[in-house]
């Protein structure tokens, strides 16, 4: 058996056109055909190109290891196709079917060429199955990667959305933080805040962490760094809204918030900021003519 020469390359050489038309038919009935997402002509173009690359790679007679350099063009093409499908909105199985649906047309041809030699037929069928499965998995992998990139980008956008810096008063910036404050987000908070401080030349920044449910040491360190950086720029930083659980965590962790001004509420922080800037808020005095 080991000495048997595979006839898959030969089959492709001889019957490329028939295999292509069979494959197109196969795809038309399979899941992979999505006329709403992709035109038939486009699919035909892709299929033709794939078959050509596949045939060229097969000529190397290496059917096992698709990581080899002869398979490079095929892998690249599959990567490209999977990426574009992921973006167009195909599902993973629809993407994988593109490669896997080639099995049926190939099997049919192999059966004809190996007529009366069941052992050889079995051997070649097995080879094709393994090979196409590998390529199918490879396409799914690429599909997944593209999706992950999209998720990564969305996460980044969410970070930007989730750190608004508001001007509470002339010279006072407020930064309400809502949701878990991980290290990456703390970094974002620090950068946004400092840039806004420089832009607006504000003297006081209030970071309100009422909406932060948990805090770990690295987050606390980041908050402290933010306070230090604010001070280095010449502004004051007040932290407000430390929840009871967080206060306990801070103390248990042994984080020293010594130099940092902390206030129970945003209102308290605002009052402290006013005081620092020499402003005061009081009841409006009634005009003498006005009735009580």
């Amino acid at each position: 058996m080991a000495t048997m020469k595979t006839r898959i390359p030969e089959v492709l050489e001889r019957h490329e056109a028939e295999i292509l038309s069979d494959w197109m038919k196969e795809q038309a009935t399979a899941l992979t055909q999505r006329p709403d997402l992709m035109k038939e002509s486009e699919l035909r173009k892709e299929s033709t190109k794939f078959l050509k690359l596949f045939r060229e790679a097969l000529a190397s007679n290496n059917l096992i290891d698709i990581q080899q350099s002869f398979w490079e063009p095929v892998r690249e093409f599959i990567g490209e196709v999977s990426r574009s499908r992921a973006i167009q909105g195909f599902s993973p199985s629809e993407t994988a079917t593109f490669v896997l649906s080639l099995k049926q047309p190939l099997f049919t041809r192999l059966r004809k060429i190996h007529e009366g030699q069941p052992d050889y037929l079995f051997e070649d069928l097995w080879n094709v199955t393994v090979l196409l499965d590998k390529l199918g998995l490879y396409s799914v992998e690429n599909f997944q990667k593209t999706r992950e990139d999209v998720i990564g980008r969305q996460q980044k956008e969410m970070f930007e959305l989730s750190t608004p810096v508001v001007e509470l008063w002339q010279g006072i910036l407020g930064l309400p933080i809502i949701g878990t404050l991980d290290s990456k987000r703390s970094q974002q908070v620090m950068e946004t805040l400092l840039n806004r401080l420089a832009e607006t030349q504000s003297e006081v920044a209030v970071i309100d962490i009422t909406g932060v449910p948990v805090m770990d040491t690295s987050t606390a360190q980041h908050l402290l760094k933010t306070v230090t950086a604010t001070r280095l720029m010449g502004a004051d930083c007040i932290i407000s809204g430390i929840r009871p659980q967080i206060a306990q965590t801070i103390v248990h962790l042994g984080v020293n918030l010594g130099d940092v001004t902390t206030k129970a509420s945003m209102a308290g922080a605002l009052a402290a900021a006013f005081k620092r800037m020499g402003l005061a808020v009081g009841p409006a005095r009634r005009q003498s003519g006005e009735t009580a």
Partner: protein
Amino acid sequence: MERIPILRMGEFLLVTIQVDMHDRLATVLQDDLANRISATRARGVLIDISALDMVDSFIARMFGDIAQMARVMDAETALVGMQPSVAITLAEMGVSLTGVRTALNVEKGMALLRAKMEEERADDHAPAE
């Protein structure tokens, strides 16, 4: 040799750093400042670093040293206009420059020094208890 100019404004000295700081320049500045504080009997030093994009740990320490040096010569130091990126880097390095006064811009730094001077004068004029 390249030097950073030190301007005198009344009882304050104004240093505006417009070029990239390197270690030698920093040492020369430190020397010059010490001499000028003593010669002019300045009461305050204002260092504007708004044009500096990069501050390394050596330069940061030098600012701390200048502030301490000025303090023993009875002058206050204000470091003004630090860029956000510089502040982040210094905070990441763990440099907090405690003992150095900071302000957002020259105007605010000047106001800070003036307020400090006035405070001292008020103390001087207050009757001894």
